[in-house]
């Protein structure tokens, strides 16, 4: 039996988590919200040692120490551009932990045979399979974002059958766990979960990976909730369910922001859609320009809008870009940044990257606020972005990004793309705007071109 004061402390921790999520959803309170979450976790971690008699205290504390060091080092060292992968990784290990906890519970419950509660066994099976899916699925998303494997959808003949078959077998195994509890079934279920996770994420295209991370995040939350039921722990139930529910909702919000339906994200490639097209570089003529040409365009413009993309961050050119913008502002040019909701690799990622370069928050304009202003813009400078200004999203119903809200860069008088090559963007499709007569291209590494451009503007 759990002591009353421990149960009350768990309740306090649960409230902290609710307030944490609430705080995290508004810019003003976000940081405080996160700290409230830390308080909740700290309270829970102290009182858990008073819940009952625990053996192996020293190894447990050592393991917590090891995990803390690993977590802090990873979180501190990671480049801001690589943060999405790290979140995926953290989510994966959380799912793995939940699956392992459920395995140990099954080991406890199995000898009880018929006396074990059927619903608890079902929850155990659920935690094992969902936790395993989240673990392997997150590792695959990590590999995709880190570009260890291709970011393009990976599909092979029979994948839908393998996926569907695995799901059916998993359900059958889960039933076996309930009817005939044995650790062997649990291990098979975990292995199958790992396979399902891989099959689930492989067909997802690179641009959609953030949505999948969010979905797997919700999965881990649900597996933790089920684990809470098994362990008779209300805090795990509440915290897991909160994350499961808010994660699912957030996944939907993200999918909407990207103009995708969740089902299309997951299974679109299986239908043999056009996500697979246009991997070849186009040899159609484009107009390329030198840094001096672009400097003149920018230096004598009245209104300039910058569209930053992931390529900017990868090249670490955001500081140079800020210098350029400061210089243009001092020349009397009116400059803003237009931030697409999914610029970068995740919604809000670009805001974080630019804030790191100390770009004033006021200059960052959200898509809906600035889209009407492109018509008045003399020059739009697109740095390391592509898909978010692709007019095909408005005009070509067959395109994989059709329906995605985009920045109307094509409405401006002049468009300048800073690009490494003619390679298509993360979504793998060609951008008509590149071939528009009012578009010039400045080829090269973003940082290199940006420094040249900066010097050229200084020389005006």
């Amino acid at each position, binding site marked *: 039996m759990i002591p009353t004061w421990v149960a009350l402390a768990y309740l306090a921790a649960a409230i902290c988590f609710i307030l944490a999520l609430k705080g995290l959803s508004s810019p003003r309170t976000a940081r405080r919200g996160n700290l409230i979450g830390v308080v909740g976790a700290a309270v829970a971690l102290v009182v858990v040692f008073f819940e009952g008699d625990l053996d192996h205290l020293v190894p447990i504390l050592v393991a917590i120490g090891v995990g803390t060091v*690993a977590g802090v080092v990873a979180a501190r060292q990671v480049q801001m551009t690589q943060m999405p992968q790290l979140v995926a990784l953290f989510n994966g290990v959380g799912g793995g932990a939940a699956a392992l906890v459920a395995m140990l519970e099954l080991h406890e419950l199995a000898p009880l045979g018929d006396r074990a509660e059927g619903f608890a066994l079902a929850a155990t099976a659920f935690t094992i399979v969902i936790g395993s899916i989240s673990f392997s699925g997150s590792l695959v998303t990590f590999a995709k974002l880190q570009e260890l494997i291709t970011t393009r959808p990976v599909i092979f003949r029979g994948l839908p059958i393998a996926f569907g078959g695995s799901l059916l077998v998993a359900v059958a195994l889960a039933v076996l766990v309930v009817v005939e509890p044995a650790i062997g079934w649990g291990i098979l279920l975990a292995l199958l979960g790992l396979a399902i996770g891989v099959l689930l994420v492989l067909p997802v295209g690179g641009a959609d990976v953030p949505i999948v991370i969010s979905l797997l995040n919700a999965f881990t939350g649900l597996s933790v909730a089920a684990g809470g039921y098994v362990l008779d722990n209300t805090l795990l139930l509440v915290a897991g369910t*909160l994350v499961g529910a808010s994660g699912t909702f957030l996944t939907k919000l993200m999918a909407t922001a990207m103009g995708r339906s969740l089902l299309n994200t997951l299974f679109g490639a299986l239908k043999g859609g056009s996500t697979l097209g246009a991997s070849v570089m186009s040899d159609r003529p484009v107009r390329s320009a030198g840094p001096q040409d672009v400097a003149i365009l920018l230096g004598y413009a009245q209104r300039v809008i910058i569209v930053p993309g992931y390529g900017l961050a990868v090249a670490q050119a955001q500081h140079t870009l800020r210098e350029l913008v400061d210089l243009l502002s001092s020349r009397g040019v009116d400059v803003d940044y237009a931030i697409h909701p999914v610029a970068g690799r995740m919604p*809000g990622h670009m805001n974080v990257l630019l804030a790191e370069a100390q770009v004033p928050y006021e200059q960052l304009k959200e898509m809906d606020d600035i889209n009407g202003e492109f018509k008045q813009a003399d020059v739009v400078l697109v740095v390391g972005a592509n898909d978010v200004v692709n007019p095909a999203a408005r005009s070509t119903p067959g395109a994989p990004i059709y329906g995605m809200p985009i920045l109307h860069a094509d409405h401006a008088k002049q468009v300048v793309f800073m690009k490494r090559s003619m390679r298509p963007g993360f979504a793998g499709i060609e951008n008509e705007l590149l071939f528009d007569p009012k578009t010039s291209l400045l080829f090269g590494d973003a940082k290199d071109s940006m420094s040249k451009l900066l010097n050229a503007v200084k020389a005006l």
Partner: protein
Amino acid sequence: MNESIVWLTIFVLSIFVGVEVIAKVSSTLHTPLMSGANAIHGIILVGAILVTGAADSTVTLVVGLAAVVLATINLVGGFVVTDRMLQMFGGARRPEVTRREDSA
């Protein structure tokens, strides 16, 4: 009242709370919010500690300790990386920027 019903009640109410509290989030905060929620499910650490504390063999102890390490990484790393993201914007933005420039 049947205990399962109590659990079901908590579960259903938590779903509503989970959706309600984040319903109005701006897209700017999607990533930090995901990361923060991600840290919160690291609380599975509590479960990992409980099962490890009840381990009855070397194998179960090792599996339990592995779960403790993984869950701690999720919990601690998740909160730290979220805080790093949020340092960049939010409440104390202006003084923050000035201070960093001073120290640079």
